[in-house]
């Protein structure tokens, strides 16, 4: 099948292509949300493991509090000893800018950013920047 044939086939089945793209879109967003949730789950797991050892020696009621403070610690100070194993350089590694912790942040960023850029640019153009093609040859 020639390249042109492939393009024509895709165009004939435009609806299917659009549906498939939407499915991929939804999957990407879903995967990211799941990743964030499991990642924070991992934080829990990792921190509770670390927290569990000293906590076991202390009274049980303090456990919940220490877990919370460990997590907030972990967010504000990525270099802390607790954070080290979570911040592994593996595939599921998390980075530490705020956007990573908002589900679907980049979805909104991409969509709204595009609209804002186009609106700003177009109005900038209408503001007297866009001219006729023969502007300089007058």
């Amino acid at each position, binding site marked *: 099948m*020639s*390249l*042109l044939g492939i*393009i024509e086939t895709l165009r004939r089945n435009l609806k299917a292509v659009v549906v498939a*793209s939407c499915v*991929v*879109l939804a999957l*990407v*967003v879903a*995967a*990211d949300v799941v*990743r964030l949730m499991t990642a924070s789950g991992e934080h829990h797991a990792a921190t509770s493991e670390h927290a569990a050892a000293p906590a076991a020696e202390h009274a049980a009621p303090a456990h919940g509090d220490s877990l919370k403070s460990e997590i907030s610690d972990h967010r504000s100070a990525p270099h802390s000893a607790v954070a080290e194993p979570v911040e592994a*350089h*593996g*595939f*599921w*590694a*998390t*980075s*530490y*800018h*705020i*956007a*990573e912790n908002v589900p*679907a942040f*980049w*979805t*909104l*960023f*991409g*969509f709204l*950013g*595009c*609209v804002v*850029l*186009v609106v*700003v*640019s*177009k109005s*900038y*153009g209408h503001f*007297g*920047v*866009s*001219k*006729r*093609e023969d*502007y*300089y040859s007058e």
Partner: protein
Amino acid sequence: MNNLWIHPSLILICGAVLLPLIPKALKKAFLLFVPLAAFAAVLSMLGRPDALHGQFQFLDWTLTFGRVDKLSLVFAVIMSGMACIGTLYGLQVEEDAQHSASWVYVSGSLGAIFAGDLFVLFLFWEVMAFSSVFLVWFRRTPESTRAGYRYLLVHVAGGLSLLAGIILWTHGKGPDAIAFDNFVKLGAAYSPAGLFILVGIIVNAAVPPFQAWLPDAYPNGTFNGSVFLSAFTTKTAVYALCRGFPGMELLIWLGVIMSLYGVVYAIIENDMRRLFAYHIISQVGYMVAGAGIGTALAINGACAHAFAHILYKGLLFMGAGSVLYMTGETRMSQLGGLYKKMPWTFLLTLIGGLSISAFPLFSGFVSKSMITAAGFQNPHLYWAAFLLMLASIGTFYCNGLKVPYFVWFGQDKCSDKVRESAGDPPWNMLAAMGVAAFLCIFLGIAYGPLYRLLPYAEVAAAYHPYNAPHIFESLQILFFTACAFFIMVKLHKIEPHAGINVDNDILYRRGGQAIQWLASKPIQAIDTAVGECYRVLGLIPLMWTTKVVDVFDRFGIDGVVDGLAERVRAAGQRLRSAQSGAVQANLAISFAVAAVVIAALIYFVA
């Protein structure tokens, strides 16, 4: 000293000089051989980096033509490689001078990159400016001639600033001061000398407010000349920033501004080559910001991005050049629906568009992210990193969506002439695009060799672009940008319209026109009036007197002496015919004379 070291610029310049002497049957082979030889000369240095070659004693100074280290090598590899791809792309061009001009241009870039001191840097800086302008002039349209002069005007001014900075910097210092080194480390980045040098460099990097020459000149180049133009001048400047001004905070600001500036203009641009030119500004903004951040990761990012950028931007300009070559049209308001006629050009250009947009598995993904990652490492630079992410939306919008859609799909607005002449270009053009497209994908998947080339290889080895946050972040941004794009297409909000957008070059374009009007109307009128008075009152009586004296002089005195004056006059007549009056030829001659005069001045004064 290694005697085997050959400067790749020397190969290219010799090739450029010898090219007209090569018989026609061997021409194509020679055209491919010369850049490949230069590429091989660069590759042969990979095994033994960190050496100084080609040092000459000139007066008190030691000039260094070959500083080979990791930073210069990464730029030299991709530039000499791009020279091969670019020459293959323009293989069918018959005019030798076009190939010679582009080779001399590349040799200027390579010379500047290997330059170890400021004088050699300046020398090759000027070689670049004066050879590249011919790639615009060879288009031979009235508009390209004018754009070429404006290009030259800006670059001569930038070169003068560089020269002024060099003189200020070296003045009164020892002979070692001419070394081209890290001005930030020397504490001179914000000194007058440092700033003059910086301005000279950022003019070439097209940093606002000195950016207008780029979208003015590059879209006016020949179909293959613009492929060369897109690769060398700005990236040589990025190299100079990485070398001379890493970690200068001002550059972060400038880089972010230019990355968004290019995007805004590209969104409202109609001509596809001018759109790509604005995206050079935008992409070089990432590199300038990377140089400004200055950490090992950021410098790696700037170099890697320059490497990837030369390939995908070359590919995009080759795609646009193919459309121009086949149809003679690049305005999107006059194109559309071309996929039936040129499907391969579409596919290859799309690969370039996806690479520049940092799509996973394409080269931009492994290079651009280093710069943003370096920004996200430092909470004080979050703003810069987020604004660069915003610019990357515009990058995908223009290169990955707008151009492919409105040129190859969308509404067919082609004239009959364009539609009939459209078709995939000759084999060599497709082959050059194929090589570039292959490398774009190859680098996106197997980025190891590129990372090993980078100046801080151990930092690069610890950086892994393919991790879940980065992939999901990129896919979300790209997919939802596409989503917004197709919604706006459906709403008929973003169809390209005929028209141009005024950049700040209006200052010298309209300013020049104003001066021309002033000169041609009021001043000319005064001049004519004064001239008329002079003619009536002074010249006519004077001519009468002169005639009498002339007759006496020639037949009286010269006849007595031996007719010497008569012979000098005849020689002068002959010399006069050598003057063609063509400004471009005069420029070449005066350039040569000026070089001799400057050399003599330096020799006798210093």
